[in-house]
């Protein structure tokens, strides 16, 4: 038992009945209070790992502990500590919103009276209180996602697991979800997130693990991982169209179009020098952005390395 970790996984393996090996000897720890990203391409084993942790998938071998509760020896203790927001909608579409949250509270042994108080608090927080009597099938996609978050939080779990929580929601809702999850994490809830939006992982998570072909290929802090980027490609938007490419010694420049330059800078290079030279050449830069999300760049590098 290791009570220091919100989640501790050792030698976890899963082979499905057809013989497909989804997880091959996974080892992973998530500290209490962490905001953790589990990333990987489709079919890498993320959902299988989450399924095992939350008791939806049976493991082939290995050990999983949630806040020190072993999944084999104390499954009820482990389940009580977890709140799960799955990828697919998995509530009764014909039930009213409030009823779904109240029933979930009941499954966790929370009395009806207490459940009503908690359900109201969660639904208000997630802007669903006005929809409490509406049948779940009549909610929009974003509302359904928020309903699953409210349901997962009603028993006040210490560990919240979200499997692609912002898939298919608009930017506004995604941003409000980010704020909500950050606040929740600040209040002490450990959060594990899987997502395909790498900028989401970069914005929210402090720790990251990358899974590929059933193996953890990377497990590091976000800052540590990003510091491994040796060079970055930046796009510069120019005020006036340029007929010729300005020459800047030490920097690789490329014209994307007459008003956009692409520059690749190494980690040790200073941006001041670049701007200084551009300024001298009469090139005025209006804005700058990364060509690729930094994490995305690293992610692709790591996956390529694991493939080879």
């Amino acid at each position: 038992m290791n009570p220091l970790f919100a989640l501790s996984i050792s030698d976890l393996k899963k082979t499905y009945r057809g013989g497909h090996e989804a997880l091959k000897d996974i080892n992973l720890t998530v500290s209490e209070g962490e905001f953790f990203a589990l990333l990987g391409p489709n079919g890498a084993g993320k959902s299988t790992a989450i399924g095992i942790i939350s008791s939806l998938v049976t493991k082939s071998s290995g050990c999983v502990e949630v806040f020190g509760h072993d999944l084999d020896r104390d499954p009820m203790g482990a389940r009580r500590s977890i709140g799960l927001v799955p990828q697919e909608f998995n509530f009764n579409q014909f039930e009213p919103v409030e009823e779904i949250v109240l029933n979930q509270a009941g499954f966790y042994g929370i009395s009806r009276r207490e459940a009503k108080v908690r359900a109201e608090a969660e639904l208000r927080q997630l802007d669903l209180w006005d929809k409490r009597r509406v049948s779940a099938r009549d909610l929009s996609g974003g509302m359904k996602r928020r309903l699953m978050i409210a349901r997962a939080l009603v028993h006040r779990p210490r560990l919240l697991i979200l499997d692609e929580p912002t898939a298919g929601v608009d930017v506004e809702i995604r941003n409000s979800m980010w704020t909500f999850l950050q606040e929740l994490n600040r209040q002490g809830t450990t959060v594990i997130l899987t997502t395909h939006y790498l900028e989401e992982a970069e914005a929210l998570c402090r720790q990251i693990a990358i899974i590929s072909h059933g193996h953890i290929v990377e497990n590091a802090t976000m800052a540590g991982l990003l510091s491994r980027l040796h060079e970055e490609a930046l796009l510069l938007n120019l005020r006036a169209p340029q007929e010729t490419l300005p020459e800047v010694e030490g920097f690789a420049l490329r014209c994307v179009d007459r008003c956009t330059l692409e520059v690749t800078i190494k980690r040790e290079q200073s941006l001041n020098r670049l701007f200084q030279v551009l300024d001298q050449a009469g090139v005025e830069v209006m804005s700058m952005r990364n060509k690729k999300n930094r994490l995305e760049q690293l992610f692709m590098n790591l996956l390529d390395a694991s493939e080879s």
Partner: protein
Amino acid sequence: MMRYWTAFQTILIKETMRFVRIWPQTVLPAVVTTTLYFIIFGKLMGERIGDMADMSYIEFIAPGMILMTVITNSYANVVSSFYSSKFQRHVEELLVSPVPNWVILAGYVGGGIARGLSVGIAVSIVSAFFVDFQVYSFSLGLLVFVMTSAVFATAGFINAVFANSFDDISIVPIFVLTPLTYLGGVFYSIDLLPAFWQQVSLFNPILYMVNAFRYGIYGVSDINVLWAFFIMAGFLALLLGVALYLLRQGIGIKS
């Protein structure tokens, strides 16, 4: 333990409200069908058939008719509800929660018993318009009601665990349950059958339930009532054991 009680209550209330909300689909059809049975088989044809087991034909079939609705409704409630929860994936709400398997099973079976009893009572009220009941033992009758409901609710649960499509949940009721019910002594006394078929009938569990219920109503039965209770308890224990084993293994619900 209090937590589990709350979880059980939640499942039971959820399951009960499910069939109450759609009572025109769940309770009403049984009442209408039974009324037609009483009119056609009891009144119109029954008067020509004459007495059976020293009672009028309509009196003879009434307990079996009531129990038949209890059987089909207990089964239908659990099989459709649990399969729907698999199909819509909201069974996962239970699987991730700290609810032991026996509480899940008790909740669903409890819901099946609730529907069996509700429909059984509704049909009994209808029966009272056609038959002058002199209930021999109310408690015995109620015990048969509950045990029969529990047996078929559990059987429905097992069917739902294995079902992969909506077709799979209608096969057993049509090809197993209905024939067993019709051949289970609802419409005739097994004394009418040749000796060989009498022996074959003794392998039909519904025969014991119908006769035990008839005994509770009139105090008469084709078979030993104690033996009937023993058979029902045996079936119930066996089916509960199988259902709990399936849940523990995660068959049909976990990958």
